[in-house]
């Protein structure tokens, strides 16, 4: 973590007192603080949370099984709203999955030293969120046993996929994103797994951590290539993360539907993704740092910086909402105009205003430093943002579809019990994975945080 890190550490000193690592932050303490969590029995809250998450995951399993055995008719999807909750949930989870790579890759390239406290955490969140996201389009295809048709695999029908379809772009974008995020995350984990391996007391732990640590010893010649690879992956992941939600937005924007067919979608979706992703990181980080004693590593300063990002992206999203209305009016296209008036004042007005309240209004509280640094406030706001961002996708998907070109087919969409079970169940999947991660893996990037301490830098002139 060459020049950049130091430069940023110095910059940090100028702009803000360094508080990235608090307390007695020598190298051994950092190792101990993070590793302890994975080495000791977790607090009771973990067991309760895990049991609940497993239960909800079971519900997801049953809902999905029922769906596969019966058919997509068990959902509320129907004409004209053929894209109901599954797509809403997909976009919601993919959006959340953006913060991790953004924090680890983009902030890395911008040499934001503060990312080290939260990057591991949010990368894990990214991966789990993308897993949840991938579930929805997969089960939405109906006949999930032929899902391999979406990949260019030779088949008995002698057919190839339609590469000009945004839905296929999605397949490639999301699976590439998942693969690269996983590589990035795992690569970051290796040195820390080696730390856990070297600290392990039992044979089985040593073996398990040892296998995944790949025999890492921290040799400098290895660090050299490792650092280079990390930089390259960051440079690759940055355009990738921007492309993924752009491609997701093409699913809508490339269609001809009023309310979807707009060029503003890609940047608007990306901003929304960062917004929701950061909110999710705050939602998770606040209880986790309290529960696992990581307050010194995930400090108030980290949270405050994230809240600033949330406020900024929240306003970007608000700008996009306004711009959509402006374009609907300015284009003079009466169908576009209708779609938007219908959005704000039609049958789904309630959803629209929930979205505006949660996404545009609540984050404004972060103009006050007190609010940015208040744990209860930020927790509540982050939950609001999560809700608001879910509703954003709901509003985009459902309000545009439910007023079809043929007024005779206009219809009001209502979810079914299975819709609910799948949405709630996906949180079960997410939290199960996340809690397992918290329990067994280093939640904070040990080696990277160490580079942010004075101990990592030479004090003689160089």
């Amino acid at each position, binding site marked *: 973590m060459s020049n950049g890190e130091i430069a940023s550490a110095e910059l940090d000193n100028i702009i803000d007192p360094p508080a990235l690592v608090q307390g007695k932050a020598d190298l051994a303490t950092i190792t101990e603080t993070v590793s302890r969590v994975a080495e000791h029995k977790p607090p009771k809250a973990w067991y309760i949370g895990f049991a609940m998450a497993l239960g909800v995951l079971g519900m997801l399993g049953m809902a999905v099984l029922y769906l596969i055995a019966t058919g997509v008719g068990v959902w509320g999807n129907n004409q004209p709203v053929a894209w109901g909750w599954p797509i809403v949930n997909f976009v919601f989870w993919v959006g959340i999955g953006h913060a991790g790579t953004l924090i680890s890759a983009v902030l890395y390239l911008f040499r934001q030293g503060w990312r080290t406290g939260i990057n591991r955490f949010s990368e894990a969140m990214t991966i789990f969120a993308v897993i949840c996201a991938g579930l929805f389009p997969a089960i939405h295809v109906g006949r999930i046993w032929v899902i391999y048709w979406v990949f*260019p695999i030779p088949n008995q029908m002698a057919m190839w996929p339609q590469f000009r379809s945004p839905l296929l772009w999605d397949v490639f974008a999301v699976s590439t994103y998942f693969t690269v995020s996983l590589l990035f995350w795992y690569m970051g984990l290796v040195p820390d797994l080696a730390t856990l391996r*070297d600290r392990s007391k039992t044979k089985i732990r040593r073996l398990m951590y040892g296998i995944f640590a790949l025999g890492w010893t921290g040799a400098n010649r290895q660090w050299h290539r490792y650092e280079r690879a990390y930089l390259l992956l960051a440079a690759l992941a940055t355009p990738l993360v921007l492309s993924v939600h752009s491609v997701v937005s093409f699913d809508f924007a490339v269609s001809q539907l009023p309310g979807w067919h707009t060029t503003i979608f890609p940047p608007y979706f990306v901003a929304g993704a960062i917004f929701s992703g950061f909110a999710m990181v705050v939602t998770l980080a606040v209880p986790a740092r309290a529960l696992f004693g990581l307050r010194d590593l995930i400090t108030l300063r980290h949270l405050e910086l994230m809240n600033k990002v949330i406020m900024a992206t929240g306003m970007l999203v608000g700008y996009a909402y306004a711009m959509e209305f402006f374009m609907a009016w300015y284009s003079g296209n009466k169908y576009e105009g209708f779609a938007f008036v219908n959005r704000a004042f039609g049958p789904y007005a309630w959803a629209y205003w929930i979205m505006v309240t949660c996404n545009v209004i609540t984050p404004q509280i972060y103009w006050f430093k007190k609010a940015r640094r208040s744990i209860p406030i930020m927790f509540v706001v982050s939950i609001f943002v999560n809700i608001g961002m879910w509703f954003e996708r709901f509003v985009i998907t459902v309000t545009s579809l439910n007023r079809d070109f043929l007024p005779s087919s206009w219809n009001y969409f209502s979810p079914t019990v299975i819709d609910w079970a799948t949405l709630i169940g996906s949180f079960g999947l997410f939290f199960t994975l996340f809690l397992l991660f918290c329990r067994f893996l280093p939640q904070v990037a040990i080696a990277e945080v160490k580079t942010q301490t004075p101990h990592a830098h030479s004090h003689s002139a160089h």
Partner: protein
Amino acid sequence: MSNNTKQFAVLAEYETVDEILSAAVKVRDAGYAKWDCYTPMPVHGLDDAMGVEQTRLPWFTLCAGITGGSLGVLMQWWMNAVDYPFITSGKPDWSLPANIPIVFELTILFSALTTFFAMWIMNNLPRWYSPLSRVKRFARATDDRFFLAIETADPLFDASATESLLRETGAHAIESVEDPDESPTPPIWLKHSLLIAGTGLLIPLMIIAYARFNTQEAPRVHLVPDMDFQEKYKAQNPSPLFEDGRAARAQLAGTFAFEDDHLILEDPGYYTGKDEGGDYLAEVPIEVTREFLERGRQRYAINCAVCHGYDGVGDGTVNQRAQSLQTAGWIPPSNLHQAYIAAQPKGQLFESITMGIRNMPGYKSAITTEDRWAIVAYLEALQGTQEAGARQLWGAAPSVEEVSPSDEDPLVAKGRELHTTKTCIACHSLDGTTLVSGSFLGLAGSERKLTDGTAVVADEAYLHESIMDPNAKIVEGYVPGLMVIPPISDDEREALVAFILSLKQ
């Protein structure tokens, strides 16, 4: 594991970054090659201090990116434009912009995978075992201590000299690293389970390969039946769908295939347009009121105007579209103002609408009986707006061409009449204008060029043949299969041919 060990390296321990940096400089300057520093995190400046050369990793990434991108282009081009072209509303088979997203994703994917794996391979990882891990204190290399190890394999290595060099660097501790002759390997159970899992993964591939290159007599295995097995009627088998096993269902008592069919016997004139004797009704059998005409106008606008046009000249939007596409073999809807149509008894018009006529489909099932009569009534009014209809309506004298010269041969005169009643006139004019097909004026005796390249003279035999079998000889510029002929007796054909011959020029 044998107990025989030999020295592998000397290991020195340091406590701070500054110490390891200065130690690295000293060891580098002493000229050692096989040595390394071990740190809990990447240390800035250590690469320079050790003299580590820049890695070539980025070149691998670059090559992989180029490969991924080019493969993306090639794959999409071959799959979508060559091997299985997708025809999408007239768009080109191959248009790069729509393929860019996937090219981009593949570029990233290839680069990332290559970077990741190349880095580990270049780092000689994964490795099961490192001799350094036998030293207890070395565990802190991933915690808070810094180490430097010089391997015995280094040409400059000399047990005492190397050790004293390390001592000079200010090491806090120095230890010799021993390595057994046989280095530890992964436990047997691990190897075996990996082996079994690996072979297990090959099984599906082998099954696929086997199926790919073999034919089988047994029906395919249906893991998921989809809709391949539906209950359905099969020839010579009882139908599983009904209790009585019959596939063709008998008509239920009290039901009729068409709306009014059961009434035909009661009032054939009203329901078929023909009275008991088989003659067309001359007039509409319902009292024609203003409302009735209005109803007819409306039904005509809904059902007929798309083809025949609101004004009835046959240029409705369907026709306009077909003409603009220059559809081969398009039969234009008739101009309803033609004299022979205006002269038809109302029952005949009704029959044309009900049963369809030649290429026009019937409207029996789409328009109620009463409405069909209303349309007929309206047609009369519509035709009254044009010459032929008006003459018919107000009893004026028929136009010249419809009258046969008084001295005409009776056979020719019969043919002239049949030309209208058998509706040849719908396509073949008598005055040289081209309707759907060529005019009969001057046809006889002319030379016809056929599609097979030969030419024939339209003599009597040719005319007979063309009426009996319109597709026997196809004249250039015409499409086979279009001519629909009503039943014509041999006598009638004689008369028609005589009539056509009389139009010789």
